[in-house]
């Protein structure tokens, strides 16, 4: 197995204790940091995404892989040049006002983070105004909203309406999810829907490309 394969494999297998040594070994051998990232770690992360979708990998394993990737990044980060790491995008996430369901949203955040997105999680029971203010401050590519109740779907609509009102926030892409949401509701609202965390990653990627 060559060293890049080993690094990719560390990510897939969640080998937290091995990856740093392997990344260092690759660098000591004169390999470009960007190559280590793209053809080692990110390749591994893509495999993780595929395996999760196929039902071959499970959530805790995926999260372990993401942590392993972070370990490797610790070493690579200072060496990477500007532009070497392209952030997949910035996302502001919230469970909307009145709603306290949060584990689904947390998972979506973790999966998006694993796929290279920068996440600002505003928590639960977040008002339309708070979301709008965060959008102004963080200037994200995407706003993600989670609602599990029919009553709090209304708050989602209010938030979308508020974002549309303001020139600085009206172009942000919106994705929604949760039990009462579906593709029709999303379209009506001017938003995008996905049913689960791995579909949310695909959706986010498609929204920023």
């Amino acid at each position, binding site marked *: 197995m060559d060293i890049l394969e080993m690094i990719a494999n560390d990510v897939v297998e969640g080998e937290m204790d091995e990856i740093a040594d392997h990344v260092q070994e690759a660098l000591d051998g004169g390999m470009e940091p960007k190559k280590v990232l793209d053809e080692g770690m990110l390749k591994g992360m893509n495999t993780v995404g595929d395996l999760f979708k196929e*039902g071959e990998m499970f*959530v805790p394993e995926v999260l372990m892989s993401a942590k392993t990737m972070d370990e490797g990044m610790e070493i690579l980060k200072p060496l990477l040049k500007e532009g070497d790491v392209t952030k997949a995008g910035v996302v502001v996430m919230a469970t909307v006002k009145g709603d*306290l369901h949060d*584990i*689904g949203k947390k998972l979506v955040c973790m999966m998006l983070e694993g796929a290279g997105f920068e996440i600002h999680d505003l928590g639960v029971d977040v008002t339309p105004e708070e979301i709008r203010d965060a959008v102004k401050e963080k200037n994200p590519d995407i706003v993600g909203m989670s609602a599990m109740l*029919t009553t*709090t779907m*209304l708050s989602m609509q209010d938030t979308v309406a508020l974002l549309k009102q303001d020139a600085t926030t009206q172009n942000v892409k919106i994705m929604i999810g949760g039990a*009462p949401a579906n593709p029709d509701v999303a379209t009506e609202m001017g938003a995008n829907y996905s049913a689960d965390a791995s579909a949310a990653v695909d959706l986010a990627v498609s929204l920023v490309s």
Partner: protein
Amino acid sequence: MERNIPNNVNFSVLSPEQIQKIHRASVTVLSEFGVKMDSARMREELQAAGAQICENDIVKVPEQLINKCLETVPKGVSLYSRDGEEIIKIGAENNIYFGAIIDVVNVLDHHTNKVRKMYREDVKNFAVLEDYLDSVSYTTPAGMFNGVDPRIASQIAFLDTCRYFTKAQSIVTAECSGFEDCLHVAQDFVGGKDKLAEKPFIMYYAEPISPFMHVDESVKRIIVCAENGIPITYMPYSMMGGTAPVTPVGALIQNNADVLMGLVMSQVIKPGASFIYGSMPTVFDMKTTVGSYGAPEFHMCVAASADLADFYGVPFYGSHCLSDAKTIDAQSVAEFEMSMMSTMMSKANLVHDGPFLDHANNITLIGLLLFDEMFYQTKAYVNGVDTSDEMIDLMLKTIKDVGPGGHYLEERSTLKNFKKIWYPKRFKRLMENPDESDLMDRLIAEVDHILETHVPKPITQEQEEVLASYEAEFMSRYQ
């Protein structure tokens, strides 16, 4: 007095030693680690009662206080029909009663077996069918149907349930204010706050956010119920590996601690307030991220929680006829049966949630008939074995009379006892079965027939006036 459904199968998941271990661990959690208590009023009340308030609104409850509250909490609960008759009586006999659901966002259409949106007329249909079935003792209007503003849907569902369902109700609302609306309706409906408190035909429910977050909203519910004499179920829904530790024992310790916290809150507000122990420790599916309703570990843990509630002597809120499948198919029926069997054998007293499909995303009228069938079927199972002296004598005599190679068809004991054996109403045992199952067609026809012919006992003119005036007020709120 005999139990309403005799249970002679001696089933328990936990041994007395296991119960002790879990109880001790839960006490450790409450007294040493603490839980988060958002409500300022409750923090004060708890502190006055002897709890310790720490940084970040963490409350630690000493064992003494837990024990004191376990002494004042009622060992039973009674619920009344809409018309004031005691139809649910939980006490020393440990009776068991089954509930059902009135509405959710989606309904599985009984003619097409396909999911569609739920509307107000569906609420009526569910109420009528559930009113008809003797196996159903109470129901849950949840206010999720489409077509009215979601902020008043719970209230409207409750009004319709009063109109078309004569038994008891366990109300679910997204916010406590929605419940308070229903409470006022119910008080006026029976003629005042005291009358309702004396013979409640409604109960309510709240839950902590697992792990260990006792949010304002949930605490408010406990207070409102304690102050109005309405029984409340406190029921964590936790997912092993997600919002609970991944092992059954971890989830049980956590849920048990959270329920005890609820129990302490209710008794601190009002010693003697009605309290029902609920617990739904389920599996967090690590492949799909679903909180499972059909997992065997879930139903095992619910039954284990019933053992814990029994240990404390408080009524237990169980779960039945639940499935992760979306339609009536082989999977959903298998999962219904497993949950039904487990719950019927367990020490549950009020059993809720069925017939839920698609991990609590849709319900079905056909499911109610399947529940009804399984109710009598599993009831026959838990009846167990009669080994009374008279029975042993009779059996020995019969066996002797018939002798080797004989048959029992003409025996007196056969004639006397064969009707005690359960015969299915809808399932068939034909010698020559048809090549294609006609069960679904028969179930559809039965639903249609009941909906056409069953007329729930109507409410009085004055009661209808109460409901109608509230309805007008609710409807005018968001126009």
